């Protein structure tokens, strides 16, 4: 019989029995995304909350009004949105909505929201909204709005009974924007709005709403004509990740929208497509390994073979040492995002390669040449638990985590070709949403190298040649009383189109127990060169870490060569100060890794313009590596001196690429939406700060993804 008939027989066997369809019918009716990119109908909000953690991007508009909105469900009840829109000019806005009550059998879902609560407040409005699902396919929404949402059919603010001050809405914005407009919240006239969503089938939904936004600003400034408060629309959801909308709005406008939804909790595949690990070898049963490594030469040979085997799975062995019945192995994982997965794979390789008299494995994952922690595992546990239910929890309970500040293992392992690495890649650099241009970007070629003097002392550099783009179109970023730390950033490499992005030596160390250090010297970033030093205190089992950083840097020349320059005094930089601009900057930092997935960081110190202040950052980190966060910096620079935006703030997003690809990689893709880069509150952008390097190898982080140990 041929292979064909047999394979046919097998698939026939598989097919002839009814297949289980285990997936549960998921009857959640997800939020409709409005033209504001938030849960809503067309222009009006609803009280529906997207799934916890969901991220969406909406592009939509009608007439000359255009909006691009990035949304994140920060918590099950709390949504946050960032928007870049064209109203009468380009404008940035932030929204937040909090769901006060979930929908019950009788009670509707109730939410309170702030639209454009920060900055110039061109969309500034507040609302309380209720949404009730009737039957399975009809959703009815009604609400009361203030600000723009109180501008059609407005009535005297009912909150006036509390305080007559609620009846008038002051203009609370400052000329440079960027501040919270709390003085005008829920003030001025109020009005009702509402609407219905009718789900025709799984893909199509019909919408109708009564809008309480009079579009007064648009009528006044860009000749918009609103003839009706009634809007109508339809959305099409061909798949889970996309929603397209078409609208007839305000009596005479045609609108369109597209929303793309990502759920960070759902990767390409749950467990990934990377190769299977080497299975555990049980001692006494067909084991390849030697009985013991009795002599130095047996040890040397054994470690050499171990190094080669580890290399086949992407690990770099730094050294190993036998002490009694224990084998200590120091290695670097450059392949697996989850250090716990790497530990599991290295441990299984050790069951195959370690001599049979070894009972205990001490694994010391390292990065940048320094050991991050030590994880002690019993070989017997590995032998017994593999492939059993509950094995992940049991091995975690039995593992011992400790600091790894001790000396290198006795036998070091030299990897061939590790010393010099290089690469040439295309690059794309985008800066989004500045005051004049929605997008600035460059594409070009980047050449990069890395030369390892020791595993913990590395020289690295990057050279870029621009091929095209508009980043060199130097905008008129107004001068301020501060030195030009970041505002002249577009001038760098603008004339020549190429230059040295960075060229430096970094030295990492373990000065003592729970302590980590870094010294970087050279052209550290595009705008500054000098010396950056850092020390971090992070006990392996602690959720708190403390750090200190001290930098002495000077401002680099615009040609991205080896020279330094004075700071600019006027907008086209024809007038400069006398001396090269140099500055001593530094911070003390506290990091706290909350058990609920949030991570906070506070840095207090001196920034690059010589200003003193603090940066506050909060990130939500998913166990699979997704990070969404926000930060802001307040310094002693007055808002009017800072310029547009008043102070530095931004939103950041980091996506682990193994989430998207399904194959193992430590690479991530990150995006940073920040206010216009200016001069106050600017920090040195140095590569390889300690905290994120160290934390990945500590149990507080490893326990979050320990499920990957046996993968």
């Amino acid at each position, binding site marked *: 019989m041929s292979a064909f008939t047999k394979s046919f027989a097998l698939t026939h066997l598989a097919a002839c*029995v009814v297949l*289980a369809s285990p*997936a549960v019918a998921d009857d959640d009716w997800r939020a409709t995304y409005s033209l504001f990119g938030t849960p809503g109908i067309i222009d009006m909000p609803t009280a529906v909350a997207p799934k916890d953690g969901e991220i969406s991007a909406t592009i939509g508009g009608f007439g000359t009004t255009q909006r691009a909105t990035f949304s994140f469900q920060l918590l099950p009840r709390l949504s946050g949105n960032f928007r870049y829109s064209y109203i009468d000019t380009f404008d940035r806005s932030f929204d937040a909505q909090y769901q006060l009550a979930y929908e019950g059998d009788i009670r509707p879902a109730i939410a309170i929201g702030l639209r454009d609560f920060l900055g110039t407040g061109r969309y500034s409005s507040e609302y309380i909204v209720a949404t009730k699902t009737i039957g399975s396919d009809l959703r009815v929404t009604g609400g009361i709005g203030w600000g723009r949402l109180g501008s059609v059919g407005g009535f005297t603010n009912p909150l006036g009974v509390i305080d007559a001050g609620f009846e008038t809405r002051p203009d609370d914005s400052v000329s440079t924007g960027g501040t919270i407009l709390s003085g005008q919240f829920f003030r001025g006239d109020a009005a009702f709005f509402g609407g219905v969503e009718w789900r025709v089938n799984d893909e199509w939904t019909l919408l109708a709403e009564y809008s309480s936004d009079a579009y007064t600003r648009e009528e006044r400034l860009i000749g918009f004509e609103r003839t009706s408060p009634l809007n109508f629309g339809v959305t099409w959801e061909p798949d889970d990740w996309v929603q397209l909308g078409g609208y007839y709005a305000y009596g005479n406008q045609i609108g369109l929208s597209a929303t793309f939804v990502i759920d960070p909790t759902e990767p390409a595949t749950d*467990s990934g497509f990377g190769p299977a690990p080497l*299975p555990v070898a049980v001692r006494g049963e067909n084991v390849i390994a030697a009985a013991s490594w009795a002599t130095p030469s047996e040890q040397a040979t054994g470690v050499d073979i171990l190094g080669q085997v580890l290399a086949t799975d992407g690990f770099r062995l730094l050294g190993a040492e036998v002490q009694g019945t224990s084998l200590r192995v120091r290695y670097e994982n450059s392949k697996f995002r989850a250090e716990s997965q790497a530990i599991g794979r290295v441990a299984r390789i050790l069951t195959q*390669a370690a001599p049979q008299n070894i009972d205990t494995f001490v694994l010391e994952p390292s990065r940048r040449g320094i050991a991050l922690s030590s994880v002690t595992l019993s070989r017997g546990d590995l032998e017994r638990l*593999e492939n059993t239910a509950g094995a992940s929890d049991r091995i975690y309970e039995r593992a011992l985590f400790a600091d790894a500040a001790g000396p290198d293992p006795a036998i070091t392992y030299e990897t061939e070709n590790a010393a010099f690495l290089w690469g040439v890649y295309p690059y794309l650099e985008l800066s989004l949403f500045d005051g004049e241009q929605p997008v600035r970007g460059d594409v070009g070629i980047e050449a990069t190298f890395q030369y390892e003097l020791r595993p913990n002392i590395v020289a690295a550099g990057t050279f870029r040649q621009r091929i095209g783009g508009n980043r060199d179109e130097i905008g008129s970023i107004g001068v301020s009383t501060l030195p030009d730390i970041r505002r002249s950033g577009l001038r760098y490499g603008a004339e020549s189109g190429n230059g040295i992005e960075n060229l430096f030596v970094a030295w990492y160390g373990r000065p003592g127990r729970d302590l980590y250090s870094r010294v970087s010297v050279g052209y550290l970033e595009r705008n500054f060169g000098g010396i950056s030093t850092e020390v971090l205190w992070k006990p392996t089992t602690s959720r708190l870490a403390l750090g200190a950083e001290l930098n002495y840097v000077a401002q680099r020349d615009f040609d991205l060569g080896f020279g330094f320059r004075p700071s600019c005094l006027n907008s086209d930089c024809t007038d400069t100060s006398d001396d090269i601009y140099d500055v001593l900057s530094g911070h003390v930092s506290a990091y706290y890794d909350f058990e609920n997935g949030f991570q906070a960081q506070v840095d207090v110190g001196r920034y690059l313009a010589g200003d003193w202040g603090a940066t506050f950052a909060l990130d939500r980190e998913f166990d699979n590596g997704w990070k969404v966060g926000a930060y802001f910096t307040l310094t002693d620079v007055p808002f009017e001196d800072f310029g547009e935006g008043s102070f530095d703030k931004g939103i950041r997003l980091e996506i682990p690429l193994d989430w998207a690809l399904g194959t193992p990689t430590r690479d991530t893709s990150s995006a940073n939406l920040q206010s216009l880069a200016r001069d106050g509150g600017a920090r040195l952008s140095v590569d390889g700060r300690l905290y994120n390097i160290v934390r990945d190898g500590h149990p507080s982080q490893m326990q979050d993804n320990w499920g990957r140990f046996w993968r």
Partner: protein
Amino acid sequence: MALISRLLCAGVLSGLAACGPLGQGATSSTLKTVAESILSGEAAANAQPAPQPALTRAAIEAADADLLLVSLVSRGSVDLLSPVSTRPGAVTWISSDGVSVSLRDGMVVATRASGFDLMGADTDAARRSLTTGGGSHSRRYDVLTGLDQIETDTYQCDMAFDKAETITIVERDFATRKFRETCENDRVNFTNLYWVTSNGQIVQTRQFVSIGLGYLVYQRL
């Protein structure tokens, strides 16, 4: 047609030379070769241009190692697997493209590299029900979620004799007793099938792996 080419390209019969020595007490220098073939999928790369042997009883008898013909039903994949590791009561089989399946006494207890792996399972009670000709038992399955957490699912199952059946696996007839195991919890229900010979060996079976992957079918060759 994709199925045939997949099966033939797998060419595991020729790739076995690399995998064979593991578990047979060879010297440690072979460990690297073996690790390479498992971890880098090199066996597949090397094997592809090799002559494509037909799956015949003679070829099976000539092979150095045991063979398992495995299909992941939802993917329509068919592949030949050979053992990489034998330990008390459990054998891990690996395909040419790096997917592994671990069997404890014929029951699927783990998969790796399938995308929706079964990370570990307690199947001893199920195996006892099968050996004793039927009965009720529970199963525990560990799966890895998209958030890197282990989720343990427990199923209540009934094992029952279905019928006596003679099946043919690559030119050889096996007199078997066919068993049907129905399992459910509040989210999922599935039915495993077993064709068991008189000495208690499972020669053909369909077993549930995970929600994302569905069923795995294998034949012992």
